[in-house]
């Protein structure tokens, strides 16, 4: 059965500056929905609002057409990868996998070259290794929807390809909503692609729309 997560009617202002004003996002289970936009366009704010950790003037977040006020408080509904590190440094990798109910062996098999052991604490790992763990636990977690804010940042190219492969596998179990400045990966992966510009979302029909809206020069790929 398909589920749908929708967000619209979001009004966000910082002082006199209007960040989000006319947003509509829809993400279905079984699909990957991408979000692109320039720096400061409000992509991360939008994700934080959808997840329920950023308050705004007005919003409507709906799951299967029913309004929900704090999505993260609904068990099994949604998980969020913020653009910053979010796992406490003092925790061991083993403990993190236990908290999220995940199988360490699957990670080991997928990312065998990562040289991460489950006895490592997060503080022992490099920034890229920490990010890899964070991306994995959110992507593999038991949730109907995952929000991924810059999942490819700080990750080495080899692991980016593995994460992309994992996303294509995981999308059959959940809905994936992601944003990243490495837009070529987003364009490759997304079934639906939105562009956030001037506080509004535009559903793009083709890659050339990104050029039309002044986001990227697609002809230079």
């Amino acid at each position, binding site marked *: 059965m398909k589920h749908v997560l929708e967000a619209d009617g979001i009004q966000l202002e910082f002082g006199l500056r209007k960040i989000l004003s006319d947003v509509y996002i829809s993400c279905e289970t079984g699909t990957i929905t991408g979000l692109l936009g320039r720096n400061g366009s409000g992509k991360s704010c939008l994700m934080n609002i959808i997840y329920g950790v950023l308050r705004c003037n007005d919003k409507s977040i709906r799951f299967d057409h029913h309004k929900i006020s704090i999505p*993260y*408080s609904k068990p099994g509904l949604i998980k*969020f990868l913020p653009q910053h590190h*979010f796992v*406490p440094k003092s925790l061991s990798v083993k403990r993190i996998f236990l*908290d999220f109910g995940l199988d360490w062996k699957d990670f080991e098999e997928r990312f065998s070259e990562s040289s991460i052991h489950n006895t490592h604490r997060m503080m022992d790992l490099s920034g890229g290794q920490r990010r890899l763990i964070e991306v994995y636990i*959110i992507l593999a977690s038991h949730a109907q929807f995952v929000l991924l804010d810059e999942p490819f940042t700080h990750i080495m190219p080899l692991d980016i390809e593995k994460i992309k492969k994992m996303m294509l596998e995981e999308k059959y179990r959940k809905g994936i909503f992601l944003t990243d400045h490495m837009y070529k990966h987003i364009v490759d992966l997304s079934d639906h692609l939105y562009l956030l510009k001037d506080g509004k979302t535009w559903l793009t029909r083709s890659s050339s729309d990104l050029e039309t809206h002044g986001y990227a020069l697609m002809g230079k790929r």
Partner: protein
Amino acid sequence: MKILGTIRIIFTFYKTFFLLNMATTMVCLLLFWQYGWSIFFQLLMLKSIVLGLSCYFIRIYKKKEFIYYNNLGLSETLLWSSTLVFDLIIYLLLLTKIPRLL
């Protein structure tokens, strides 16, 4: 099992300010044994101020880590209410039930 898991996660959060608060509790305990019930409310005030300051600084410096707990289904309100109530109970139990050692 789920309840045990939740308790384990809450204790992980509690550990972030455990040392400072336990040290405060110990100081209060020593002062209480020294001066008795006459300073009970002053000590309670001291304990509350330290707890308040802990909350303030954790909300600033550990703000990003709250997403970890949110992802595990625990809200900030639940984390604070459970840990602060637990800490105050421990404080009151130690103060009133432990016989004077000095």
